[in-house]
């Protein structure tokens, strides 16, 4: 009888904390958002369930927890082993491989000028970096927080695993949360910064893109970005490699696996381990709160600068751009492109913005990876 009580005490019940309780609620909420609201379910459900796993309280030293990595001489726990892909940073490039193999860059190739919108949205990263410095984060931490505005989960995880591992959980969770909340965050900002007249602008349908261009693009784009920002080759190398596998026409079987089984497996492992890493004692800190606020700021600045830059471009071109699609520059592929479509359709149901929005959308992925490369080499 005592044994039983004692056993239960050493178990979850004995070590329960309100922090764990909060995190369990958050985890459940993530799962709810994913299922009921269909917000990025492929990310929120693994992360949410991971939060449940990571916040079951127990007496440590049984090599169960994700932080028992055997550094203390004990046995490395299973979770800590699967978590290495995050801490060592090799899950993100593999996810980029799959994204490259499933991304069709033709929309972007069809109207190259829209690529600049993907650059403009990265302003959010750097301004947030300054703000984070201002409120007392170290430079490396500030850089990792700023990248949240890149709206690319894998990029954020990759950079913070290198520059600020202790903040990885908070950064990853807020990055993915805001990516999931894109349909909530962006529309008001877009409406605020554009006139009805601008939102009604129709853009010319794209001309088709030649197969050769689609094959040459990943190679050339990789060389350009690699030479200018070598720090980005880990991410962009795999992104463009995956895209070449897709476009080459002779490696379809590799591309097919990369965009299905391979990316699915990594997504599962990344999501659940990132979720597990949000142990209340490490996650529920003032720093995390700040990170969430800064992350939101970063997202909004990014959206705004994308839209404003589109309006700026319109001053110098006669073939007008609908500034709505500037918001797609934050990437968060393809959600923000869909948001642009919806916002545009509100004004004119027959205005097909999504094909145009995809251009800054995918360009934004490249843009934030380049920015990450810059920050990496600056602070590593």
């Amino acid at each position, binding site marked *: 009888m005592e044994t039983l009580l004692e056993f239960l005490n050493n178990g979850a019940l004995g070590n329960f904390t309100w922090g764990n309780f909060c995190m369990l609620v958050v985890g459940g909420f993530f799962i709810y958002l994913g299922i009921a609201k*269909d917000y990025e379910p*492929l990310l929120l459900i693994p992360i949410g369930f991971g939060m449940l796993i990571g916040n079951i309280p127990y007496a440590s030293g049984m090599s169960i927890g994700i932080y028992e990595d055997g550094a203390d001489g004990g046995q490395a726990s299973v979770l800590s082993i699967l978590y290495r892909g995050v801490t060592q940073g090799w899950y993100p490039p593999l996810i980029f491989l799959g994204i490259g193999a*499933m*991304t069709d860059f*033709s929309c972007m190739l069809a109207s190259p000028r829209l690529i600049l919108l993907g650059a403009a949205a990265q302003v959010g990263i750097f301004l947030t970096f300054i703000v984070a410095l201002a409120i007392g984060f170290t430079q490396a931490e500030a850089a990792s927080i700023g990248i949240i505005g890149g709206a690319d989960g894998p990029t954020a995880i990759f950079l913070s695993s290198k520059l600020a591992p202790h903040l990885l959980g908070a950064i990853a969770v807020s990055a993915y949360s805001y990516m999931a909340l894109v349909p909530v965050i962006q529309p008001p900002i877009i409406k605020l910064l554009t006139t009805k007249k601008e939102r009604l602008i129709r853009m010319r349908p794209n001309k088709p893109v030649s197969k050769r261009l689609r094959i040459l693009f990943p190679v050339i784009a990789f060389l350009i970005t690699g030479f200018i920002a070598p720090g980005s080759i880990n991410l962009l190398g795999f992104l463009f490699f995956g895209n070449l596998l897709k476009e080459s026409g002779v490696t379809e079987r590799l591309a097919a696996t990369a965009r299905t089984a391979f990316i699915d497996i990594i997504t599962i492992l990344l999501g659940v381990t990132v979720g597990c890493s949000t142990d209340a004692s490490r996650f529920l800190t003032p720093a995390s709160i700040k990170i969430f606020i800064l992350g939101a700021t970063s997202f909004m600045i990014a959206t705004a600068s994308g839209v404003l830059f589109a309006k700026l471009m319109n001053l110098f071109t006669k073939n007008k751009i609908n500034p709505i699609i500037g918001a797609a520059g934050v990437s968060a*592929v393809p959600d923000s492109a869909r948001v642009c479509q919806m916002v545009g359709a509100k004004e004119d149901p027959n205005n097909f913005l999504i*094909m145009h929005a995809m251009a800054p959308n995918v360009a934004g992925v490249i843009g934030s990876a380049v920015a990450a490369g810059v920050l990496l080499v600056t602070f590593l």
Partner: protein
Amino acid sequence: MPEWLNFGLELTVVGLVIVFGALTIIATAISFIRRANDAWQKHEDAQAEAATQKEQNIDTITLLLISAAAATMIQGRFHIKSIRRILPANAQRGPWSQQGRAVLLGSHVVSKKRQ
């Protein structure tokens, strides 16, 4: 009674209490939810409609995608009246699958002329 037997029996009792305890609580929880379900049913049906709404919504997206692509090809000379839905209602949703559709679509647009 030898020490090992004593220990063994004790662990057996504790273990079985925990195993039965856990599964009994699960069983109870399940039956509770099942009973609560009827009450929820009404609300669920409401949700279900909302879901179909959303479903529609997503189809609209697809529709727009297709129209856009078509427009791309025919330079907007014609107009699309209706499109037969090729994906089952319960097809994978979520960004990536959308993306997937876009991909197929994109390549399709191109293939028209070049492949």
